């Protein structure tokens, strides 16, 4: 099995990529919420498939996920993940007056649009940083068990390995009690172009 391996330098670069991407996305969310959004330090590491749902509370935790496929010079999967409570808070803020127990079609579409804007900011920052050409797919939204919605994120990695590179940043907004996560999972063949674009010092 051809398991990927990250050197310290590679992990540093990917962490920085995540910091810059998530920083721009957090700024976009700050604008939407009209209040400051904070973010954690980004982690970049190789995760066994099993470990990935654990990052956000385990395979059975119910979450809201917005999925964007990244293509162009780099390919991979971008996910914006929220707890149910956070997603409700976000909707209350964006669509005041909507108080249904379930998520309506309008609300799902609003969540998709938020994911689209935040994912777009993230990838835009990544594109500026690397001078690589990147496109994003239309957003797709799912609300279900974390293990089930994250399947899709690791499929491409699954073709060649039993683990995936996960670039993870948490964000939160205190007064509205919204917290979320950005996952960037580069396809296995995309890790190297990304590192090369940033000047690979390991070679």
């Amino acid at each position, binding site marked *: 099995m051809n398991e990927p391996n990250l050197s310290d330098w590679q992990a540093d670069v990917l962490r920085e990529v995540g910091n810059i991407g998530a920083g721009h996305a957090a700024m976009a969310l700050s604008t939407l919420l009209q209040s400051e959004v904070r973010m954690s330090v980004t982690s970049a590491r190789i995760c066994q*498939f099993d470990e990935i749902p654990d990052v956000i509370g385990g395979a059975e935790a119910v979450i809201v996920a917005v*999925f964007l*496929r990244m293509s162009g010079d780099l390919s991979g999967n971008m996910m914006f993940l929220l707890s149910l409570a956070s997603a409700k808070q976000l909707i209350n803020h964006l669509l005041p007056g909507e108080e249904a127990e379930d998520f309506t079609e309008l609300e799902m579409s609003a969540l998709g649009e938020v994911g689209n804007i935040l994912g777009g900011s993230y990838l835009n920052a990544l594109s500026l940083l690397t001078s690589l050409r990147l496109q994003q*797919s239309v957003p797709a939204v799912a609300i*279900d068990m974390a*293990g*089930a919605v994250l*399947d899709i994120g690791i499929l491409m990695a*699954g073709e060649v390995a*039993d683990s995936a590179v996960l670039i993870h940043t948490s964000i939160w907004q205190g007064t509205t009690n919204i917290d979320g996560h950005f996952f960037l999972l580069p396809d296995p063949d995309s890790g190297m172009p990304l590192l090369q674009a940033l000047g690979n010092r390991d070679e």
Partner: protein
Amino acid sequence: MEVIRVAIADGAVARASDRLRTTGLGSCVGVVLFESRSGLSGMVHVMLPNAPAAGTDRPTKYADVGVDWLVDQLHKAGAKPSQLRAKIAGGAQMFNTQSTNDVLRVGPRNVDAVLNSLNRLEIPLLAADTGGSVGRTIEFDPETETLWVRTAFKGQYGI
């Protein structure tokens, strides 16, 4: 009674007194094979339809070779392959999208690949809860031969 957890892209065999469980099946498929006489059961949690042409050292990741692997393991544990029967769950498409992105449609392809393997190995399929857009956690009770399916919003039911 012990509950044996089966991880993604993994598999296990259980004695009559034990249960097999796997959590958060999305596009992945959980395949359970069991033999009534001995009470032996086995489960794989496959994530992709077809193993690479060059072969694999992880058959439990793939629908096509994962079922063969499980039959082999149960055979080694003392079950008769001709007496095995199957129940399966999973293979959902979690994200509804207009895009023609093939990645998002892997669930139904996984189910097809499992069905092909069961067909080829002449293993009767007694129950299936597949497709749709829901995640599933499954647990097999060898005593009643019930496959319990739990979803996030529709509770638990047996098949």
